C-alpha cells in the first residue's frame, strides 16, 4: 500500500471544498498541466505511468507538495526514466 492511498485515514483535517472557479492559482500550474497533456497525447508515457510516478515520490516530499508540484515531479521523473532528458537537462530546466 502506497502513501497516496489515504482514504479513511484521520488527521489530515477537513477537505477544502470551496470552489473559487479558478482552475489554476499560478501560471506555472497551467504550464505544468499543458506539458502533461502534450506528453500524454504524444504517447511519451501513459496516464497510469503518470499516476504511478506521483505515487513514487519520497513520502515526505509527497506530503509537503501541492497538487501541481506532484505533477511537475512526476513529469521530470518520467522524462528522465524514458530517456527523453538527462539529469543535467532536467536540472537546467528547474
Amino acid at each position, binding site marked *: *500500500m*502506497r502513501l497516496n*492511498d489515504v*482514504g*479513511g485515514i484521520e488527521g489530515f483535517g477537513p477537505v477544502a471544498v470551496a470552489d473559487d472557479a479558478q482552475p489554476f492559482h499560478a501560471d506555472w500550474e497551467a504550464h505544468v498541466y499543458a506539458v502533461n497533456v502534450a506528453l500524454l497525447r504524444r504517447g511519451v508515457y*501513459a496516464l*497510469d*505511468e503518470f*499516476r*504511478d510516478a506521483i*505515487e513514487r515520490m519520497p513520502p515526505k516530499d509527497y506530503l509537503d507538495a501541492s497538487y501541481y508540484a506532484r505533477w511537475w515531479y512526476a513529469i521530470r521523473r518520467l522524462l528522465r526514466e524514458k530517456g527523453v532528458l538527462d539529469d543535467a537537462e532536467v536540472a537546467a530546466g528547474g
Partner: protein
Amino acid sequence: MAERFAPGQRVRVRVLDAAGHTRAPHYVRGHAGTVVAVHGHHRLPDDVVAGAADPRVEAVYAVRFAAASLWGSGEHSVTVNLWDSYLSGAESSHV
C-alpha cells in the same frame, strides 16, 4: 467480451497487497459491495505500469459499498470503479 458480473450482483474485493500501482484502494479490500454499472473494458493499470508487453484488458465495474460496512458508521454509500482482477467472486445477495 463477456463480463463476469452484472449490475445487482454482490461481489467481494480481493485482499490485495499490491507493491506497485493499483486502482483498488485499501479501504475496500476484503469488503463486499454491489455492482451498479459496467464501464466497458480497459487495460489493467497494474499491468500497464509494470511494463507488461500485453496488459490484460478487463471489465471495469462500478461497485457500491455501504459506508457503514467500510467505516463502521454513516448512512451514505461509496462507489469505486474496480477492474475484474480486483474482485474475488460473487457473494450471496444479502445486503
